């Protein structure tokens, strides 16, 4: 089971993509409005309303049997706190964190986290579209 924390644009798209790949998915979001705005009803994922820093909410979301946790909130600071809390509580779980700030991205990678940085990915994609492979240093 894949646990996705945060249902803004990226989290919601991730849920749909994982469901399309036949994965079992549970999503946790504290803001009901985001769920309504970004996540359509026909995705087939389990939805849990509550804060990702609340142990009771995570227990309700089935944390114990999650294979991978995606920390995908829009807010870097929230992801930083949530990821470190989860690692302290569940040291054996695989955690993938979304971060945009370049320094936080570096610090988290050095600490052994898997980091997905939408900003980095976008810049790389733009650059690769513009500069031919042979001209890149």
């Amino acid at each position, binding site marked *: 089971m894949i646990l996705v924390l945060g249902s803004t644009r990226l989290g919601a798209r991730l849920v749909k993509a994982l469901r399309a790949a036949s994965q079992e998915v549970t999503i946790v979001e504290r803001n009901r409005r985001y769920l309504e705005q970004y996540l359509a009803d026909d995705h087939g994922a389990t939805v849990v309303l509550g804060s990702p820093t609340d142990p009771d909410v995570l227990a309700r979301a089935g944390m114990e049997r999650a294979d991978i946790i995606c920390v995908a909130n829009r807010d870097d*600071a929230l992801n930083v706190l949530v990821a470190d809390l989860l690692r302290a509580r569940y040291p054996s779980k695989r955690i993938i964190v979304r971060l945009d700030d370049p320094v936080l991205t570096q610090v988290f990678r*050095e600490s052994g986290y898997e980091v997905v940085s939408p900003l980095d990915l976008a810049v790389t994609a733009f650059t690769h579209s513009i500069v031919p492979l042979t001209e890149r240093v």
Partner: protein
Amino acid sequence: MFVLICGSGKVGVHLVRGLIADGYEVAIIERDEDIGRTVADHFPDVCVFSGDATESSVLKRAGIERADVIVAAAGEDKDNYTICKIARRKFNVPRCVARVNEPALHELFRAEGVGAIINVTAMAAQAIESAVNS
């Protein structure tokens, strides 16, 4: 000694006054432009930077690289935790002081090397309790 304060508010204003009186160099990062302007008007010697202190570029602009002490005094725990994390892991700031609301998070802050944790609510409650008892 250079002290960088992140998030000012009312506590920050009193803190700045005390630190300047003690001879510290002080800079502030404040997200709210109105509060920032008020602080700048009150303390002409203090550099006030407008922005989000959880962003490393904002911390750099405010001089975190030469800070002796960083005070993470924003309203939310996640912001103060992130500020301390950047300060400790990237910039080796020798001393971090953080305001933390949730007691369950104290251990996490300590594990990041935060030297002093201030729980404003608990301190106010203690002060009121001792005033009642005296």
